[in-house]
C-alpha cells in the first residue's frame, strides 16, 4: 500500500531507509541532517530497528560499520562538517568494503545557513572512491535512500546519500510505502582476514576499488533509461544544460518558458560520474551550461570527458565566471547564469526573464536588523556575562587580559553584541585545544594574559571536548574551561546526550557526570554551580581563572527551548533612571529601549531574572508567576 503525505526531506530519507530494511542507525546531530535520526529513533521500536545518537560522527560511522560487518542494513547520519570528523574510518572503509549495507547520510549546507563551511560532499565521494547520490526533492530522497541500500548491498561498499538544505529541510508531498518489521536474520560476524586493514590488504584491495568505480559508473549510465532521477531530455537547439540536486529544479523553472530550447542532463547519481550517458548527451550539443551549487564537480567531470575525447563542446559554468562559486542558488541566480552564458556564446536565443516584483530589493527602505542571539532567558547569557565581569575585575586588579575561545553550538552566539565574548571559534572541541595552544605562547608566558578561557557545551564536551581536555592537562596548559551545561543539544533541536541519562530511543541509561569526567582527566579545580545567581557565577568564574593550572566550572541550567517560562519581569517606570544598563549590557531580546523613557520588556521574557540582577536601581521586578 502506498500513501501520500507531507514529509520533510529528512523524514522522507528515514522512511526510505526503514522501507529498505534498516536495522541499525547511528548519528550525531548537525543541521541540516538531524531529523533523519530523530524520525528513525521515534519509529525504531515499532519496526524493530536499533537507533542511537553517538558521541561524534567518527564513533557513529564505526558503530554502523561494526553492525554492517555482521551483515546488517545500517545507516549513519551527519552534516557535512561531521563527515570531516568521520573521514578517518571512511577513507579506510572504502578499501575494505562492507557486508550487509551501509548508507552514509551527509547533509550539505550551501548558503551556508547554519554551518562553518560550504564544503561539497561530492568531493568526499571522489576523494574516498565512494558512490554519491544527490536527490533534488524529498520524493527523490525517499526513492534514493532505497537505492542507496540496494547499491551498497550489491557492490559491498558504503554509499553516500548527500542532500542539501533545501532537500533536507524542505517539505513536500511524498508517496511512501508500508514498512515491514526489520528482520533480525543477519548472518552475524564471520571471522575473515578481509575485515582487518593491513598494508598488504590495502594493496590487494585498491585495484578492486578502482575497478568498482568503472562498474558503478556504467551502472549509473544505465539508470538513465530506468528511472526519473537521472534523465536526458532533448531540446531543439545545440545548447545543453547539465545539473544535479536541487539546481535541476531551479533550472526547470528558470527555463520554463523556453523549455523546448535546451537539452537537459539531469543527474542524481553524481559519483562515480556516468561517463557513457554523459558522452551520449554531448553528442548532440555544441555548448554546455553546467548548473550546480558549491563545487564545480559536474563541470570538471564534463571538461575531462570533453578533453579526453577531443569533443568540440564549449562549457559554461563556474570556472569561466558565469555562475557564482559560492552561496546558495535559486531560480534568479540560475537565470543570471544562463543569460551570461547565452551572451558569451552569442546564441540567437532570447534571454530568460525574471519576474518583476512590486518593489525591487534595492528599494526596500532600511529595516531593523536581527542578528541571531541567545533566546530570552538563555543560561548562556548569564555565564558569558559573568566571565566578562570576572575578566574585567581581574584586568583592573592585575592589568592582565583574557582570551575567550568559543565553540560550536548555541553558545557560539556569545559573539553577539553586547556580550562579544567569543574571540575564537573553529570547529567542535577546538575551543579547548586552541586555548591550550594560546597558553603555550610566549606572550602568555610573559604574563600578558590572565588566563585562556574556553567555553564548551555539554554535548560538544562529549563530542570532542574530552580528548582536548586530556591533552591540555597532560601538556600543562594553563586554561579554564567553562562547560555550559543546559541539559540538551540545543542548537540542533534538543537531542539527548551522554550527560542526560536517556538514549535516542527514549530508554533510561547511565548519565555521565561531566564534572567527574573532568576530575578524572586530571583537572584539579572542578566546580559545579547553577547558572542562575549572577553574583555567584562571577565569583566562581574569577576563582577558576585565578587558579594556577587547569580549572573547570560546570554551569548547570536549562535551555528555555524545552522549559516553561517561570514568570515575566517588568520595569518600574518610577524607579527606572533610564541608565539603559539592562539593554546595553545583556542584549536580551525581550528588552528593548525606547528612544525616550523607560525600556520595555516584551512577551517573550521567560523570567530568568538576569536583568533584575544587573539593574542598579532595583527597577526590574517579577510581574506575575505563570502556572
Amino acid at each position, binding site marked *: 500500500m502506498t500513501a501520500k503525505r507531507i514529509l520533510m526531506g529528512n523524514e522522507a530519507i528515514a522512511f526510505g531507509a526503514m522501507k529498505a530494511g534498516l536495522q541499525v542507525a547511528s548519528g550525531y546531530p548537525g543541521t541540516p541532517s538531524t531529523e533523519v535520526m530523530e524520525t528513525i529513533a521515534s519509529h525504531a521500536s515499532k519496526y524493530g530497528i536499533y537507533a542511537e545518537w553517538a558521541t561524534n560522527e567518527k564513533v557513529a560511522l564505526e558503530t554502523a560499520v561494526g553492525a554492517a560487518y555482521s551483515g546488517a542494513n545500517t545507516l549513519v547520519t551527519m552534516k557535512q562538517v561531521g563527515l570531516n570528523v568521520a573521514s578517518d574510518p571512511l577513507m579506510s572503509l572504502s578499501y575494505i568494503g562492507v557486508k550487509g549495507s551501509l548508507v552514509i547520510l551527509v547533509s550539505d549546507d550551501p548558503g551556508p545557513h547554519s554551518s562553518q563551511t560550504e564544503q561539497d560532499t561530492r568531493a568526499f565521494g571522489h576523494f574516498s572512491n565512494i558512490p554519491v547520490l544527490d536527490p533534488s526533492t524529498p520524493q527523490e530522497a525517499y526513492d534514493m535512500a532505497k537505492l542507496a541500500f540496494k547499491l551498497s548491498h550489491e557492490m559491498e561498499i558504503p554509499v553516500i546519500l548527500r542532500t542539501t538544505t533545501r532537500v533536507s529541510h524542505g517539505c513536500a508531498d511524498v508517496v511512501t510505502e508500508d514498512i515491514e518489521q526489520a528482520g533480525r536474520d543477519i548472518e552475524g560476524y564471520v571471522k575473515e582476514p578481509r575485515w582487518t586493514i593491513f598494508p598488504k590488504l590495502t594493496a590487494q584491495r585498491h585495484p578492486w576499488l578502482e575497478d568498482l568505480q568503472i562498474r558503478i559508473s556504467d551502472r549509473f549510465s544505465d539508470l538513465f533509461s530506468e528511472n526519473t532521477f537521472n534523465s536526458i531530455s532533448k531540446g531543439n537547439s545545440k545548447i545543453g544544460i547539465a545539473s544535479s540536486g536541487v539546481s535541476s529544479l531551479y533550472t526547470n523553472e528558470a527555463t520554463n518558458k523556453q523549455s523546448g530550447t535546451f537539452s537537459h542532463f539531469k543527474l542524481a547519481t553524481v559519483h562515480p560520474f556516468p561517463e557513457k550517458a554523459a558522452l551520449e548527451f554531448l553528442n548532440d550539443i555544441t555548448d554546455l551550461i553546467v548548473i550546480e551549487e558549491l563545487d564545480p564537480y559536474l563541470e570538471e567531470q564534463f571538461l575531462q570527458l570533453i578533453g579526453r575525447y577531443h569533443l568540440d563542446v564549449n562549457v559554461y559554468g563556474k570556472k569561466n565566471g558565469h555562475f557564482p562559486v559560492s552561496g546558495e542558488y535559486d531560480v534568479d541566480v540560475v537565470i543570471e547564469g544562463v543569460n551570461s552564458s547565452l551572451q558569451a556564446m552569442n546564441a540567437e536565443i532570447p534571454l530568460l526573464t525574471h519576474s518583476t516584483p512590486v518593489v525591487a530589493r534595492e528599494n526596500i*527602505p532600511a529595516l531593523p536588523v536581527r542578528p541571531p542571539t541567545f533566546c530570552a532567558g538563555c543560561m548562556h547569557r548569564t555565564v558569558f556575562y559573568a566571565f566578562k565581569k570576572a575578566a574585567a575585575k581581574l584586568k583592573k586588579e592585575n592589568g592582565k587580559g583574557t582570551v575567550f575561545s568559543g565553540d560550536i553550538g548555541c553558545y557560539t552566539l556569545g559573539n553577539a553584541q553586547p556580550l562579544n565574548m567569543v574571540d575564537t571559534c573553529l570547529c567542535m572541541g577546538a575551543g579547548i585545544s586552541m586555548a591550550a595552544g594560546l597558553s603555550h605562547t610566549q606572550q602568555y608566558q610573559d604574563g600578558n594574559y590572565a588566563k585562556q578561557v574556553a567555553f564548551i557545551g555539554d554535548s560538544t564536551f562529549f563530542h570532542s571536548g574530552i580528548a582536548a581536555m586530556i591533552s591540555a592537562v597532560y601538556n600543562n596548559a594553563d586554561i579554564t574551561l567553562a562547560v555550559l551545561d543546559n541539559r540538551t543539544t540545543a542548537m540542533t533541536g534538543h537531542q539527548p546526550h551522554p550527560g542526560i541519562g536517556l538514549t535516542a530511543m527514549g530508554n533510561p541509561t547511565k548519565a555521565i557526570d561531566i564534572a567527574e569526567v573532568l576530575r578524572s582527566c586530571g583537572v584539579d579545580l572542578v566546580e559545579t554551580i547553577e547558572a542562575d545567581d549572577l553574583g555567584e557565577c562571577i565569583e566562581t568564574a574569577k576563582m577558576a581563572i585565578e587558579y594556577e593550572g587547569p580549572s573547570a566550572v560546570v554551569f548547570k541550567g536549562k535551555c528555555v527551548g524545552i522549559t516553561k517560562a517561570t514568570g515575566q519581569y517588568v520595569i518600574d517606570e518610577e524607579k527606572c533612571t533610564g541608565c539603559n544598563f539592562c539593554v546595553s549590557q545583556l542584549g536580551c531580546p525581550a528588552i528593548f529601549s525606547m528612544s525616550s523613557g523607560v525600556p520595555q520588556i516584551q512577551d517573550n521574557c521567560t523570567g530568568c531574572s538576569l536583568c533584575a540582577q544587573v539593574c542598579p536601581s532595583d527597577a526590574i521586578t517579577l510581574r506575575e508567576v505563570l502556572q
Partner: protein
Amino acid sequence: MKFDILIAGVGGQGVVLASRLLATAAIDAGYHVATAETIGMAQREGSVTSHVRIGDEVCGSLIPAGNADLIIGLEPAEAARNIHFLKKDGSIVVNEHAVIPSASANNAEYIPEQVIEFLKKNCQETINVDFTQLAKEAGTYRAANVAMLAAAAGADLLPFNPDELWSVLEKMVPEKYRELNRKAFDMSLEKVACIKDPEQQEQVQVMDI
C-alpha cells in the same frame, strides 16, 4: 495552478508551524507542495522565512523574486524585508504587532507604523490587524500565527477555504490548545469579514449596542 506564499517573522513566532499547516492543507486539497523553511542558527531571535509553493507541478521550494501571490508577515519589518518576493498583483496579510530587536543591534529607531504604510503603498490588498493582540484576547499571544492563517483564508487569499484550513489545524494542534486556537481562528475570521465588508462592520457595531 501555481500559488506561492511567503511567510516571514521572527524566530519563535511560529513561522515553521504556519508553513506546515499550509502545506498540509495544500496536500489535502490535492496539490503538490514544496516548502523551504529556516531551521537552526537563524531561528534564535533572527529573521525567519518559510516559502510555501502550492501547485500542480513539482518545483524547487524557493520562490523566485516577484513571484509570491501572498506574503504573510507575522511582524511588519519582516514582511517589508521580503516584499521583493511579492508579484505585481499579490496580497499581504501583516501583523501590526512589532517585535522590536534588542537595542544592542545598533538599529536606528524602528517605527512599525511607517513600515505598514510602506506595505500598503506598494500593495493594494494589504490586510493589517494587530493579530498578536487578537490572539492575546483569545487566550495567548502565541496563537497569532493561526489567527493570521485564518485571516488569509477568510479574505479568500488562499487556494482553500477556512473550513479546509481548520480541519488541518484540528489534526495538527495538540488537544489541549485546540479550543484556544479555534477561538483565535474564529475571532480572526470575524475581523477580516468586517474589514472586507464595512457594512457588516456597521451591523456588528449596531449589534454591540
